[in-house]
């Protein structure tokens, strides 16, 4: 079942710029792990930003569960429908891992973080005192407890070593298959692409399989 869809979406930074995306139409389904590949400057992060409601398309529509996200309000879309995971983790630096989870879910408990391999002591430590891999686990944990049906990840393994990257890929894959989330990852990584259920490529301003 389609949870997120692009309908003839085009995007340019401004009227004079060349279009980065042109009439892109595709659908993303729940329980599926997508990888979007593309060269530098192809518009991967822009596409992710549009799906996340961080920016608006020049033309076309983005639908979430059949509703245009601009109609329901972009902050509401970001709060309810999507959870973002970034390459540089993006955690709030004065909070602990558990407190970072509670930014999106007041009732979140330590169980999610423990499942992802964090020790009890680490869960209550300042988040900046964790390793990169641990911080990315916290960021994914925040996405999982948000109850959003879609997880959007921008190069989530870009700053991690191969072993840690594989752990993160496994966690995202489990989120798609076990938690029935729609996981969309934009990446350069072949490791991620190999693990994905569906691989899409941004080529010639279009999204193609």
């Amino acid at each position, binding site marked *: 079942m389609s949870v997120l869809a692009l309908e003839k979406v085009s995007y340019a930074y401004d009227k004079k710029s060349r279009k980065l995306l042109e009439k892109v139409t595709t659908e993303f389904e729940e329980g599926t792990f997508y990888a979007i590949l593309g060269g530098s400057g192809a518009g991967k992060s822009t596409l992710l*930003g549009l799906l*996340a*409601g*961080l*920016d608006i398309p020049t033309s076309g529509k983005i639908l979430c569960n059949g509703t245009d996200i601009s109609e329901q309000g*972009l*902050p*509401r*879309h*970001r*709060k*309810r429908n999507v*959870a*973002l995971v*970034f390459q*540089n983790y*993006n*955690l*709030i*630096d*004065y*909070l602990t891992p558990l*407190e970072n989870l*509670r*930014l*999106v879910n*007041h009732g979140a408990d330590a169980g999610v973080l423990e499942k992802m391999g964090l020790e009890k002591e680490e869960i209550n430590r*300042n988040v900046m005192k964790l390793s990169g891999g641990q911080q990315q686990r916290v960021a994914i944990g*925040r996405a999982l407890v*948000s109850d959003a049906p879609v997880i959007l990840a921008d190069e989530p393994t870009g700053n991690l070593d191969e072993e840690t990257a594989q752990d993160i890929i496994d966690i995202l894959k489990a989120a798609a298959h076990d938690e029935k989330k729609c996981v969309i990852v934009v990446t350069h990584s072949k490791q991620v692409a190999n693990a994905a259920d569906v691989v899409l490529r941004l080529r010639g301003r279009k999204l193609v399989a």
Partner: protein
Amino acid sequence: MLLVKRAWLSVSRRAGKSVVLLLIMTVIFTALMAEASVRGSMQALRESVSRGVPAGFVVRSGSGELSLADAQSVGGVQGVTAHNYVRGLTAIPSSLELVEMPASGVELSGDVAPEAGVSGVTRSDLIQGFAAKQYDLVEGRHITDGDHNSVIMHQELATKNGLKVGDQVTLDRDGKSVTMTIIGLFTGTSRKASLPSEMAENTFFTDLASSGELAAGQELTEAQYLVTSADDLNATIARAKELPLPWDTLQVEDNAKSFAGVLSGIATVEGLLNLMLAGMSLASIAILVFVLVFWVRGRVHEIGILLSVGTTKGRLLAQFLIELSMIALAAGALAVLASGQVSHMLGDFVVGQATGTEDGQSGANIPPPSFAAASAFDLGRAWLLGCAVVLMSAVVAMIPMLRLKPKQILSKMS
């Protein structure tokens, strides 16, 4: 996570930045509270002047005589709100030992009779010394119109002679003797006294009738009149002068001059305070905006994260304002402590400037000016003004960030 909790965690865990803001706010709040204290002192001084020197005029006997009937006719003039008829004389208090003069270098002859000053009055509370708080009634009550054989005396004289309210004293003058009941005791000192009878300690305020019995027909020394307001003073005097009285032998003196200088001084200082307040507020806003712009820029990462998890810009602004309010609360408490000291130094100086005296003596029977500490209400108002300045500055500092799209903010993050 609740907004307030997040705000508290931000303030408490980013202690260094919070302390910098706390110090800046404390300085601003201290300045505002000191300004409120000085303004309060000005108001207290204005009230003190009005109380001590209410608008009015005095008719004195001059070269002629001021009869009670003439004084009463002036008292009936439109615009006169209160009156006090005074008969001043001296008398010898029977069996009482007067308070001695402090050493002044002036030697009095042993032949000088131990006379006390006597003021027969219709209302002792309108006597200048009481109105200006130079004297203070500490026990009993004031003389009022209609009292008979009543007297108010100095507490020190009463103590020296073992007297208290309800006891009787007898005053003698030229073979006449009047016994009166003590109805009140007062404290205070005279500014100048060259004779024992001119000392406040040796002064008796009696009812007018008793002084009349002692003086055997002596007319009034003066009649004091209060008018509705300073604006009506000249018109009321003009109406009084239309009465068929021997004005060529009477002296009329209004007291407008005695407080005009001080009121003008207060107005000048208040004008300066208003300018200072406006300047201080603008300078505070400028400094705070400058500091808060950096404060907000330093949090672009956090802003981006919160926007990406669906926090609205309104809630972001609210969180930052709550954080600043928390710091402002602590700064307010520190400023209350700091402003006390600053206000005292500034207040006494400015009040002295307003009265045109350095030693606090204003000359025209105006009570000695002094610093009046600001009330809790004034301090609260200054704190609220400070908070308004802080919050306004925060909004101004955040506008550039709030106008950006979430994606632009996230770009700044990376």
